[in-house]
């Protein structure tokens, strides 16, 4: 069914365009009305569309809106078309709803910024792009959004452009994303090459048919490589190993941006994409294993880095990376709806956390250094409350949203059958360990999550005194209503959001899992796990969460405690290494960026300057110059030298002209081979009739001519086959000059 889906992204785009063209001269309120109005309108349309779509989506359909043909060339045809099913609908709601909240929040947060209109223009642009990303019916349209959000991220990270660090961070984000995009593009090209289409439903259909994508390619299948390359795109966008490095730096942007783009929406695009292309992934357990392993490792790795960060937003950034790792582990183990579920809950609690961070930093005069915070519980009560809820949610405390979603991912990892060769014929024996290993790593990561989040909470809010300077302390205040309002809404979401994905199987009411139920037509049936296992994991994860919180309390409850100091003193270099994020950035700089730059510079000088311009061009010029100089040297001014050259010229011509058979124009010998018999004719034009020449024919080049005489032609029979050189000497008796002609003949 068609529906004006185009309105959903169009409204924010329009808002952005209007603000860019006219916003500079407008009052702030007008700007806000346009910006928030655009996204609110979009949100309303999205809700309308979503609830129109749901009943149809249940039957496997959805809403569809073709704007027109975008690119058609040769066999390729890409429509500018949008499609809404349960999956994209859910994402749309998250984007527009949280987007709207963040617009509101920003009106307070950015209140004093001179570039207020520009900020909102970017935000609108971002929302539009993100909506195109999720609604896109084909990979190229999705790619518009994919790159568009990257662009907005770039612009917003570098929003305060006067600092080079911010601009650098933006550039780094864009370029790292582009590395991923290269993978996305190649994956797209592979899919096109083998399915002949870039339309997602068609690719899905082709993948479910199997054939085309199961062709062998580079030692695996097409599906494997396509899935892998697409996943490279996802690692860039969603900040997974090894391309996660941009996200911590991206915290340079305004905090609402971190909340919206770098926590709730954009960074989850990779997860969305994998879920969207699940049909392709299901064909290749190998690629899924890679997705799951990368996800799990990222979850753990980022959590560990999170232990030692002292910047509020940096901690949250690593937390985001880590949570995204969970999601990938979810989709990578075939538990697509769990991945999307975590995406959903994460959107709320992480956006809430970030906005709290913004609120706290707002209160602290812009500083995000948690070592100087502490005891803020009383001073910013609303913010504290929201943070508290979100903290519990991310730690996985029962009945908060994160509990359900994280649990279903971990449970799914242990229970997955994707890598079981006995059940999934596509999987090899060697993959059997993946599910369990991923599960274990994820459990460690969950423990780590509880620990570093609690550390953050305790260091910031607990205790009685604030470690900051008096001047800062004096200014600490709760944020205005425009900021607090959205926070509360997000807190509610973070607290209750988990109930849309209740483990229905456990409660004997699968339909209670609203999310999985709705997503089933898109992503297939949810994973079945035995009840005992499920309960076991629930208990286990509660223990992990509480354990992490408890451990953190031991270390940081009410401020820095003795164990924390002791630990830091015991392994100072390790702590420093973790604090320096394992120096991965430096490693990249050393291994990749600097060599590339040095090589490029080297090539520039060696190839362009020396080899081509110096040697080739300059060398030619040198030769030309040399000959010219010789000619000029000959022209010495002495007329008698000129005449001598003249005379030598005459002599040379006489010499050239009197060489018998001398010629520039053709091969003189005409050779006809017939078996072992060879006829050679040195006759040229009409000369022989007029001049008597002596010919001697030496057919085997042994110095002894076989035939001599005034006849220009001769005949010879070779004794055996082989390759011979015929040498003909022509003598002009009247001039006494002679010349020799040779030619190779092959007789068989």
């Amino acid at each position: 069914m068609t529906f004006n889906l185009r309105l959903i992204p169009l409204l924010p785009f329009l808002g952005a365009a209007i603000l860019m063209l006219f916003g500079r001269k407008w009052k702030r309120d007008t700007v806000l009305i346009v910006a928030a109005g655009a996204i609110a309108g979009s949100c309303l349309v999205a809700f309308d569309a979503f609830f129109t779509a749901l009943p149809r989506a249940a039957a496997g359909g959805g809403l569809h809106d073709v704007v027109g043909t975008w690119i058609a060339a040769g066999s390729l045809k890409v429509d500018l078309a949008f499609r809404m099913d349960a999956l994209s609908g859910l994402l749309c709601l998250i984007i527009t709803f949280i987007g709207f909240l963040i617009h509101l929040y920003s009106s307070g947060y950015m209140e004093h910024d001179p570039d207020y209109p520009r900020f909102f223009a970017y935000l609108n642009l971002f929302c539009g792009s993100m909506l195109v990303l999720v609604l896109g019916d084909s990979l190229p349209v999705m790619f518009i959004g994919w790159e568009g959000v990257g662009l907005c991220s770039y612009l917003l990270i570098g929003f305060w452009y006067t600092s080079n660090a911010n601009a650098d961070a933006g550039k780094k984000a864009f370029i790292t994303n582009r590395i991923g995009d290269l993978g996305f593009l190649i994956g797209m090209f592979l899919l096109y090459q083998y399915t002949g289409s870039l339309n997602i439903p068609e690719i899905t259909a082709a993948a479910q048919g199997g054939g085309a994508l199961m062709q062998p390619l580079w030692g695996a299948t097409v599906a494997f490589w396509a899935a892998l390359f697409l996943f490279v795109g996802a690692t860039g966008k969603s900040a997974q190993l090894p391309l996660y490095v941009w996200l911590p730096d991206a915290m340079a942007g305004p905090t609402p941006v971190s909340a919206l783009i770098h926590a709730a929406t954009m960074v989850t695009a990779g997860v969305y994409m994998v879920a969207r292309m699940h049909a392709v992934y299901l064909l290749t357990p190998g690629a899924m294993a890679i997705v799951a392993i990368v996800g799990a490792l990222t979850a753990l790795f980022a959590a560990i880095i999170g232990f030692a960060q002292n910047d509020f937003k940096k901690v949250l950034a690593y937390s985001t990376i880590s949570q995204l790792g969970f999601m990938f582990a979810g989709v990578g183990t075939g538990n697509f709806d769990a991945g999307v579920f975590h995406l959903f809950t994460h959107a709320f609690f992480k956006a809430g956390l970030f906005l709290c961070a913004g609120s706290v930093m707002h209160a602290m005069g812009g500083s995000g250094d948690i070592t100087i915070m502490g005891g803020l519980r009383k001073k910013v009560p609303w913010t504290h409350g929201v943070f508290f809820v979100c903290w519990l949610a991310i730690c996985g405390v029962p009945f908060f949203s994160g509990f359900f979603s994280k649990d279903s991912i971990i449970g799914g990892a242990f229970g997955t059958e994707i890598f079981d060769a006995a059940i999934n014929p596509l999987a090899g024996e060697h993959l059997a360990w993946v599910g369990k290993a991923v599960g274990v790593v994820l459990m460690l990561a969950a423990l780590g999550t509880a620990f570093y989040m609690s550390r953050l909470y305790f260091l910031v809010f607990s205790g009685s005194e604030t470690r900051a300077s008096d001047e800062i302390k004096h200014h600490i205040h709760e944020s205005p209503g425009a900021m607090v309002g959205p926070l509360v809404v997000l807190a509610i979401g973070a607290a209750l959001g988990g109930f849309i994905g209740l483990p229905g199987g456990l409660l004997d009411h699968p339909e209670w899992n609203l999310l999985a139920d709705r997503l089933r037509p898109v992503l297939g049936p949810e994973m079945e796990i035995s009840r005992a296992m499920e309960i076991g994991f629930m208990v286990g994860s509660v223990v992990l969460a509480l354990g992490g919180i408890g451990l953190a309390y031991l270390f940081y409850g009410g401020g820095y405690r003795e164990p924390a100091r002791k630990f830091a003193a015991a392994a100072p270099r390790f702590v420093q290494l973790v604090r320096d994020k394992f120096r991965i950035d430096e490693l990249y700089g050393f291994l990749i960026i600097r060599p590339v730059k040095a090589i490029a510079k080297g090539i520039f000088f060696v190839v362009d300057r020396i080899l081509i311009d110096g040697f080739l061009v300059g060398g030619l010029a040198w030769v030309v110059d040399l000959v010219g100089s010789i000619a000029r040297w000959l022209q010495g001014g002495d007329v008698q030298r000129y005449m001598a050259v003249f005379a030598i010229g005459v002599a040379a011509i006489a010499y050239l002209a009197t060489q018998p058979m001398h010629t520039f124009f053709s091969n003189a010998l005409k050779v006809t081979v017939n078996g072992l018999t060879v006829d050679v004719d040195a006759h040229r034009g009409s000369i022989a009739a007029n001049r008597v020449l002596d010919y001697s024919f030496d057919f085997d080049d042994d110095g002894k001519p076989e035939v001599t005489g005034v006849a220009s032609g001769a005949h010879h029979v070779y004794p055996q086959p082989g390759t011979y050189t015929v040498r003909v000497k022509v003598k002009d008796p009247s001039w006494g000059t002679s010349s020799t002609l040779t030619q190779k003949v092959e007789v068989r």
Partner: protein
Amino acid sequence: MGLLGWVTLLPLFGAALILLVPQEEESIHRGLGLLTAIVTFVVSLLMLSGFDAGQAGFQLEVNRSWIAPLGIRFHLGVDGISLWLVMLTTFLIPVTLLSPQAIGIRNIRVREFTAAMLILETGMIGAFLALDLFVFYVFWELMLIPMYFIIGIWGGERRFYAAIKFVIYTLVGSLLMLVAILYLYAQFHAATGGYSFDYAQLSHLSLPASAQMYCFFAFALAFAIKVPIFPLHTWLPDAHVEAPTGGSVILAGVMLKFGTYGLLRFALPLFPLAAAQAAPLIAILAVIGIVYGALMAFVQDDAKKLVAYSSVSHLGFVVLGILTLNPTGIQGAVYQMLAHGISTGGLFLGVGLLYDRRHSRKLSDFGGLWAKTPVFAACLLVIVLASVGLPGLCGFVGEFLVLIGTFTAQKLWGPAGLTGYFPAPKLMGGIAATSVIISAMYLLGMYQRLMFGPLDKPENRAVRDIHGAETWVFGIMVTAAIVMGLAPQPILNRSEKSVEAFVASYRDRLQEAKRNPDVPPHIYPPLPAAAAEGGGTP
């Protein structure tokens, strides 16, 4: 004279008119120049409206006898490929003339500059439209002279060197091409008894393999220098850097396309067998050029040089697209030519504007300009992103289609018995695609060093934002970049038939040539009856 004749010659008449106005009347020169360019653009719009997208062949032909004794005819015609390149030319020239920075900082002799630009326009349009190889060659050389003067008179410090280098490089190729044209002419005579330089007739001439190789080399060399294909590119950074803004815009925006247009129009169709044999080499060079140009751009501190090297990279895509020899890739190549005209033209206008304001092109001399020039910064950002190939802007469509075409190159050619003709398409496509990363690195790096960071250089505080005509110039370029990114279809539709016909006829002629590689010059496919007459006498 026909519509095409008018499009071609109007700028020349305008130039003559301008040269008659006394030296001092600079505003009249500018006005007349702009007027001429706009009228030409309007006439070219008439051409566009008269163009029938459903037809593959040449349309709106003008075909009059010119030098009858040699069978040379003033034969112009437009098809879906040249149509857009002409439109690009007639579009860019008025925009350039509108820009106050076009003439560069040596703001002298406006009359001659305007006239030179218009003569250049005639040369370019004529060369795009020419269907007679002699006419093509004349126009091809005709554009050389004004560009030489534009670089040499209004250029930067090393302008003599750059101008001479430009001319010599170009001549190296074009004169050998002239020999090959003459050879074709002689062989056509040998095969049919008629004398003709007409493209429609010569493109039926099938040469033996060895002769094809020589002729293809001559043609391809001329075009490869113009493109430029690595390693023939070193004239380009020098020429671009030294040329005044207007010269750089036209040089990069239009003139480089003659290389790729020539490959598509002449080198490949005329010598299918040799082209197929050389294709792997050229494709590899194109890929090298893509990466190489990008890497070179990455290490430049001179903004113009950076943009110049980026052209090497972008034009590599065009060459690669042409060599895929499937409609998708060639459509992409055609589109990339246009998009590059817009994006790189815009970049040169932007860099030129800054050069005009600050008399420096060194990136390290800038920084933090956004605060001073927000509108300009926004415009430049769009153009930079178009050049980076962001989807939704013009640069994406072409690169995307080229890469798609590259990936599917073998798929289309395999069934035709021509496997192995395009080596390792996925590898080549993959390597070429890395430029999406590097282009982001150098272009955003450039943008950052211009616009972001602290405004810590005192000279930069006085830089003024765009105003007046400049706003129009950048507004037009930005609009073009966005429209071409969102709605490429009107363009692709009109070139579709011609591209498909090109591929079909190329494949047909290639297979014929493969069957008879050593047959002496002959006509294939047979000349249509109407075209067979009309040849001249010796």
